[in-house]
């Protein structure tokens, strides 16, 4: 071959134009979708149930202090503010329990051969246990 040959290609380092856009999540993200709202309600239910536990601890102390103290605590439950919170606690404790029951099949996996026991069966057992506790308390307190 004669002549000077082809001119070598000049390699110029290219400039990156990357500028990733990073979105930030809003503080009220949990209101945006039905599933997120359900999650927020579930978490909130724990707060309300916790409040009622304080009430129960107070009740236990009053029970120890004698009949008058116990009567005072029982009557306190009929106080309008207390009653409102109690009604809220009834609803929230049911939300708390039902959402928990629905979630248990994710962690309680019982293998039967090459399948897992059906989710509905696991959930049903939990409802049964709740009912059982109700029956136990009912009879322990001597029926309505």
């Amino acid at each position, binding site marked *: 071959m004669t002549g000077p040959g082809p001119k070598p290609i000049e390699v110029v380092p290219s400039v990156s*134009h990357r500028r990733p*856009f990073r*979105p930030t*999540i809003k503080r009220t993200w*949990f209101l945006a979708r039905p*599933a997120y709202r359900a999650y927020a309600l579930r978490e909130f239910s724990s707060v309300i149930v916790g409040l009622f536990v304080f009430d129960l601890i107070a009740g236990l102390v009053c029970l120890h202090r004698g009949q008058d103290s116990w009567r005072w605590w029982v009557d306190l439950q009929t106080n309008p503010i207390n009653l409102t919170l109690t009604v809220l606690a009834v609803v929230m404790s049911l939300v708390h329990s039902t959402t928990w029951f629905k*979630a248990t099949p994710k962690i309680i*996996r019982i293998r039967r051969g090459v399948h897992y026991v059906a989710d509905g069966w696991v959930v049903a057992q939990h409802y049964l246990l709740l009912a059982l506790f109700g029956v136990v308390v009912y009879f322990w307190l001597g029926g309505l």
Partner: protein
Amino acid sequence: MIQDKLTVRVQRYRPDRDEAPYLQDFEVPWSHDTSVLDALNWIKDNLDPSLTFRWSCRMAICGSCGFMLNGVPKLGCEQFVRDYAPGPLRIEPLENLAVERDLVVDLEPFMASLKAVKPYVITDPQKPLSGPGNLQTPEQMLAYSDFSMCINCMLCYSACPQVALAVDFLGPAAITAAVRYNHDSRDQGEHQRLPVLDTEDGLWSCTFVGECSAVCPKGVDPAAAIQQAKASAALSWVAEFALPYQGNDR
């Protein structure tokens, strides 16, 4: 032939040109079997060749074409325009991930998370191979088979609010990959994966919202995997107190 047209509203973003993403409308003809991916390709072929998006297999197995369709994370290839008629159909990039350009998101943080959990069978070199090799019964496979269906499509990362709230969170798919191997009878690497999982940004950022499992197109149920992993981590924690030190710290 007069064809139905639908407004497809796509999020655009050119990092070298735009300050922030914006929405652009396109009128797209569609018929009964036009998928959302078909619509995007039609826009690219006929209206705007600069529209950028990931896609490959067209059959919900490669995991490339994840987008937010009207605010819900879905795979573009298995969603049909007919279900979004009369429109507009809003197509945005997957939420909670940084947007590189148009509908393309940055997958590098996820790749790093996946690599960190060692998503491969780890055998114990000190244990002799018994018999003709790694045999596994169908019952043993049941323990991890659902978790192995993950196509890394990242829809779960878009559905999970903790991915946005806890910046270094491993995320549903990465944790599920770890659980898939931990539950595999051929694997002995659980103790190696534990230090990655049992940290604030590992397992414990998860608050069991459960949306990851709701949006998963392959029925992987990452929420279940993560809760099971929490239980395993808790058991390991107890075991460290209850059982004597096992020997060399591997």
